[in-house]
């Protein structure tokens, strides 16, 4: 066989999918570009300029001046983004973490701001929301009414409701504390820990993972005051999360992602710079990964032996991820584009984009990009 034929026949991985992804991006960019005779003045947004500068530094095509790159910028984002969130693509309620406070978005797109709280998380059945405001820990009804509140001695962060609904773990300054789900005072679990939200393991008995002050991962049984296991080294995670079946723990550090078995055995280490991670109900993992040069991608990892699949890539950074409760849709917060993307990962891939999300979750003078916190249960009030 001639060399030409061999080169033409050589397999190119993911060829068709790559073409389709690029087709969407290129056509979206083309649609945003004004036709020749009606071209307006070029506006360079801060994020767009940053992306263009990153491209200019990385790639300077022969014969083209850098000025050509910087002066003509394509703003990141999907062009056909809806200007208004008029519904979620899958059943459930979405808890949103915005600078204006936490919001709950219903399936039909209606939304309610809970109040001027710093952080929030769903109760196991989505009946309540645990929230923090300064040195106060609160349990809220989904309409924002305060069910109970508890004063702490230090600023409250990292609030997490236990799977059985009976406990809430939280950080008060550097300390890890526990409170009953009805607000009755609880106990001190650890005096000094890392500023990482703890993670409850689904199932029984109740186990809680946290990062100690040295950056080691510890898993404890709060009720029995016992240490189940701790990591041998100090991965210093910035995020901890358990799979829905409680079999695996994901520890995300700035340059690495680790997956542990429930008994503490390290299953794999992935040297990735990630900005977000999320478990699907069926055990897949979505990771938002930085590719450098101002670009990022979202990967979905299935089993250990399977190849990761890229579901999206674009300029900028993807700052949060959330799976729908049925695991068919993946929500991606795209800060530089001021968009949320919802990608259907089952059967036929689809992408739905919601634009101008900062404006939609602003309150009074308080604006800023809203992050996807938790996409909860289809049933509930």
């Amino acid at each position, binding site marked *: *066989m001639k*060399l*030409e034929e*061999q*080169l*033409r*026949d*050589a*397999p*190119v*991985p*993911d*060829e068709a999918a*790559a*073409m389709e*992804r*690029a*087709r969407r*991006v*290129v*056509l979206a*960019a*083309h*649609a945003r*570009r*004004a*036709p*020749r*005779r009606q*071209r307006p003045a070029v506006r360079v947004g801060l994020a767009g300029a940053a992306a263009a500068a990153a*491209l200019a530094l990385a*790639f300077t*095509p*022969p*014969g*083209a001046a850098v000025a*050509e*790159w910087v002066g*003509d*910028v*394509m703003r990141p984002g999907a062009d056909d983004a809806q200007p208004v969130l008029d519904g979620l693509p899958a059943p459930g309620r979405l808890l949103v973490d915005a600078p204006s406070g936490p919001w709950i978005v219903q399936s039909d797109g209606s939304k309610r701001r809970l109040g001027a709280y710093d952080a929030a998380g769903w109760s196991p059945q989505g009946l309540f929301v645990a929230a923090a405001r300064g040195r106060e820990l609160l349990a809220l009804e989904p309409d924002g009414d305060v069910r109970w509140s508890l004063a702490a001695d230090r600023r409250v962060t990292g609030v997490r409701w236990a799977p059985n609904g009976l406990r809430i773990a939280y950080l008060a300054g550097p300390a890890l504390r526990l409170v009953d789900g009805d607000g009755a005072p609880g106990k001190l679990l650890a005096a000094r820990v890392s500023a990482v939200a703890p993670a409850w393991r689904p199932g029984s008995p109740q186990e809680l993972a946290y990062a100690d002050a040295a950056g080691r991962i510890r898993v404890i049984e709060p009720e029995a005051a016992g240490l189940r296991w701790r990591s041998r080294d100090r991965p210093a995670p910035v995020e901890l999360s358990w799979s829905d079946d409680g079999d695996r723990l994901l520890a995300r550090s700035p340059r690495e992602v680790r997956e542990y078995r429930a008994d503490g055995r390290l299953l*794999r280490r*992935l*040297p*990735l710079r990630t900005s977000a991670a999320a478990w699907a109900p069926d055990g897949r993992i979505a990771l938002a*990964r930085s*590719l450098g040069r101002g*670009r990022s*991608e979202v*990967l979905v990892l299935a089993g250990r032996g399977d*190849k*990761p699949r*890229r579901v999206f*890539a674009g300029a900028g950074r993807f700052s949060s991820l959330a799976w729908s409760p049925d695991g068919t849709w993946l929500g991606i917060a795209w800060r530089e584009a001021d968009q949320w993307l919802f990608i259907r990962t089952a059967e036929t891939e689809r992408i739905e984009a919601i634009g101008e999300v900062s404006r939609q979750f602003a309150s009074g003078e308080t604006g800023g990009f809203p992050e996807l916190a938790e996409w909860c249960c289809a049933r509930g009030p």
Partner: protein
Amino acid sequence: MKAVAFEAESPEGTVALSVDAFAGAEAGRAGRLVTRARSERALLRAAQRGSSEAMESLFRRHWPAAHRAAYLVVHDPAAAEDIVQEAFLSALRSLDRFDRRRPFGPWLHRIVVNRSIDWARARALRREVGVDAVAEPAAPADAGAGPLSANVLAALRGLPADHRAVVVLRHLLEYTPGEIADLLDLPRGTVNSRLRRALDALGEKLS
């Protein structure tokens, strides 16, 4: 070879076209090239005026070869996708300034292949350890590929990036050594010597 000049009517007025006319079997190819060039100019004109259909036609016409070329140089599926996507976006940014009398393909290929060489060189310098734990394998055992194609992939991987590039430009994209020299801003002699060494090395690996 006999140079033949044509005049063609277009909305911009009469433009002059020159086509090298080849005797015998080449004449048909020359005719097809002229037809394709004319339709591509029409597509470019329409794309410049905002036609998404024209832009999509251009994309579909040029993506497959450009993507294959990038992959054969970088041997990284994600990098190949990014490089060619960015090349098209670069084309969009320059679309208004693009001279429709010039063919689009070589302009695109120039960007793609040069970036691919840069990427491959940068990767060799970075020696990214562990990235392959997530990135797809450089030479996947594709069930649909024949052993010959898989062998040529493996043999290509053993060449330096700039040698892979000249092989791809010559034997996949079918540019002449002179055209390759223009695309890569190299002396023609350098192109010829790289091509010769690359083909010798491929011959040894594949024999």
